[in-house]
């Protein structure tokens, strides 16, 4: 096939910018990201585009194509008419760095605020036992490629900068659900979700689920069950009493284990390597014997 398409690509930075017109060749089987690369190679060598795998696995190339948040590598040119003008803009919820690249640090900050996986004490590496059916619930959420499209479309923050402080967004509420449903996680995360991460802001419009390129049922399988768990716990009189007595309990103080891995070998597979062993340093490469 091969034809020339009309593109409008947003060019600019934090100070401002505008759409710039490009007429670009399109070959059979291409995706929008291919076209962005062709513009870079032939017309605008400095056009900023963030991308990595080009196979829908890394979640780097999020943008708004004709106003719809998409991964550019997964948006086939064959889904457009040949004479259709196609606009490409940076995702809206995060500050622009340059052209199609945005500052997504908000997400990394929110990730840090979710307490880490807390395994049961006394369970050594290699002793973990979980059934497939139990891990599958959390595995669905671990398919997330962190493209932040759900964070981008969520109306709680999309046009409400003021909510960003209180609200972690679907990606990190789902992370809390993932840990809560992890068969071996021992931390109680329900109050956290509600009180620290703004689960209550979510009113289940399912925008996150619709935009997810991994087709994760964020609303139905993570957010709604999490809301139900919070409610169950809130009105359970024993939990209420327990909370009064133990407050946030000892779990809060437990970090992940800080063990040095070479000091604490797992179940024996024929190797037991202690820390002292590593202390000798061979400066020469390839010294073996």
């Amino acid at each position, binding site marked *: 096939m091969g034809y020339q398409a009309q593109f409008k690509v947003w060019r600019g930075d934090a100070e401002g910018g505008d759409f710039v017109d490009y007429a670009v060749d399109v*070959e*059979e*089987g*291409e*995706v929008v990201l291919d076209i962005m690369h062709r513009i*870079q*190679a032939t017309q605008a*060598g*400095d056009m*900023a585009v963030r*991308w990595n*795998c*080009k*196979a*829908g*696995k*890394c979640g*780097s190339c999020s943008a708004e194509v004709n106003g719809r948040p998409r991964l550019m590598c997964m948006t*086939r040119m*064959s889904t457009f008419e040949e004479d259709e003008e196609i606009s490409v803009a940076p995702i809206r919820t995060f500050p622009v*760095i*340059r*052209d199609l690249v945005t*500052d997504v640090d908000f997400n990394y900050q929110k990730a*840090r605020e979710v*307490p*880490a*996986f807390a395994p049961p004490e006394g369970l050594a*590496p*290699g002793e*973990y036992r*979980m*059934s*497939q059916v139990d891990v599958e619930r959390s*595995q669905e959420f*671990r398919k997330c*490629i*962190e493209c932040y499209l759900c964070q981008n479309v969520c109306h709680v923050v999309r046009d409400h900068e003021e909510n960003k402080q209180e609200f972690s967004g679907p990606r990190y509420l789902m992370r809390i659900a993932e840990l809560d449903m*992890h068969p071996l*996680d021992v931390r109680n995360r329900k109050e956290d979700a509600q009180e620290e991460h703004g689960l209550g802001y979510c009113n289940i419009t399912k925008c996150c689920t619709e935009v997810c390129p991994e087709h994760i049922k964020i609303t139905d399988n993570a957010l709604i069950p999490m809301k139900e768990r919070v409610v169950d716990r809130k009105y359970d009189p024993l939990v209420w009493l327990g909370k009064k007595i133990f407050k946030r309990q000892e779990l809060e103080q437990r*970090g*992940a284990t800080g*063990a*040095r*891995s070479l000091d604490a070998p*797992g179940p*024996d*597979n*024929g*190797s*037991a*390597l202690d820390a002292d062993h*590593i202390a*000798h*340093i*061979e*400066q020469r*490469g*390839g010294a073996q*014997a």
Partner: protein
Amino acid sequence: MTDPGTTTAFEAAGAPETGEAPVTHHTYDVVVIGAGGAGLRAAIEARLRGKRVAIISKSLFGKAHTVMAEGGIAASMGNANPRDNWEVHFRDTMRGGKFLNNWRMAELHAKEAPQRVWELETYGALFDRTPEGKISQRNFGGHQFPRLAHVGDRTGLELIRTLQQKIVSLQQEDFARTGDYESDLAVYHEYTVTELLKDGDRIAGAFGYRRPTGELVCFHSAAVVLATGGVGKSFKVTSNSWEYTGDGHALAMRAGAKLLNMEFVQFHPTGMVWPPSVKGILVTESVRGDGGVLKNSEGERFMFNYIPEVFREQYATSEDEGDRWYTDADNNRRPPELLPRDEVARAINNEVKEGRGSPAGGVYLDVSSRMPAAEITRRLPSMYHQFKELADVDITAGPMEVGPTCHYVMGGVEVDPDTAASAVPGLFAAGEVAGGMHGSNRLGGNSLSDLLVFGCRAGAGAAAYLDGLDEVPSVSEQSITTAREDVERPIHNSGGENAYTVHQELQQTMNDLVGIIRKADEMELALKKLHELKDRIPRVAVDGRRAYNPGWHLALDLRNMLMVSECIAKAALERQESRGGHTRDDYPTMDENWRQELLVCSLRDDEVHLEHQGQPAMRHDLFDLFELDELKKYYTGDELGGHRSDAPPRQSRGTEDAGDEAERSSTTVETGGDPGGELTGGGA
């Protein structure tokens, strides 16, 4: 050397001002370059050993190329077949690499992989399970038993996310103690390192730039761990992302380290071939591990015609036997679709060349006729997704079209197996950027385990190096000025070459002339073209804006890609045999005299210099893990002395290389590399 949270002596050396664009200075104990599996594991280990660590990543944190790994992590946990143990894994790895592997690395890898995998569960990883609730393990090419821990076909994503989350959890601990998430473990993402800085012969830091702003940065650090991955972006058809520009390989060379085995480049047999825009993107080997078969345009399962002599006894000779193996592996031999990757890639190449290819120039990989649709979407969800979205092909209804794609470089920085230390004091390397572990060809699944095992060892090695350091190296102003000039050159150039055009020519050259099948005259031509490109690269000019300017970034990556390409071409021209990821049309067979020859590249006066280096003989107890008949296929006659089979029982021959029974079964090991002396106690 320093306690977390304290300032280091480096700060005294910092902040030399040199005019217009300022340089931002940072000081750490350990700088890890690369945030894939090896880099993150190294950073975790160094931090757990009390060091202040910076992780530098070209991409956003969590986007590393490791996410592209699909099949799984090879580790002989024995969950699927209790007969599996490290010795079997070691043998498979050596066979896969055609016995050119650094055997000590292969040994450490096989022994430590299970611990490194189990450890991931303590970080929160959720692998697929066996009915008893253990980690499930799947079959893969070259592995005798089901050995790959996996999560569907997105294992790499699980690995990267798990390590990323472990880093965050360590930062949370630091925050609780210091009030600063990044006090002891900081991630500098979207930064590129362009040069390593030295004080005398030792590492003193790293220089680079911040991609979003173009600001220049200098990291002061006595230990640097390279974990930068591979070199695939030197080739046109590749499964690798833009980051794979051989940065670590080139940085190490310029710092004075050596690269070995660069001629061995793995072409994965199954990359997508249609549509053209996704040509090269990986189709996981799990498709074959789970029952997918390769067919040519005549509908023939052609792999049965390509079983090489050395593997004759381990592979099925009929389709019936091969099919039975999936359910009864103990009583049948595996189908030849699961031969090591180099064999399958060459076979596909030959089928296409002889006119039995698919319309787009590949062959057919069919899983649709082998299992129900629901099972395909459960076992291979991301493959289903990938073909549906990128090619509009439903793999549950029909075959995929696949062909070889540049996937992995076996060659890399020569390191000490135990500590991952290179020849340059303070410089460490782990993962794909390190060489030796995989010999001439890597088995699928051995990459993720390599990242974990040697990432961990590199972090520990760097920490131990710092503990033994009595003097703090410092960065000189002169080295910063030189590094800055190199970085700014493309900005100051005007009216010169276009970076994208030069890159395309480089990729085409490597693809066409130093690709999957190689010939002397073609490689000579390639070297000539590379020489021309070498003259053009310093003339590449870019638009002067510094903020997130991909043209500038590519211009700087080009010299690294060129340097590794030259190493590959020179080594490939020199090696006059075919072995693993190196196939010569003019020397089509494996030559046992070449097995002990390693080709090593170093930099002299800015020119790649190639020399031969001997391969150290394998330790006796490891040598004895193989049958003599198998070793005869790879070794020359006079290398075989000392095998257990020619030592009479209970009689020491008294020579240095005798495989004495008593010594072999004792618990002392001569390298001092295995303190527990657990060699004979292996196997679950």
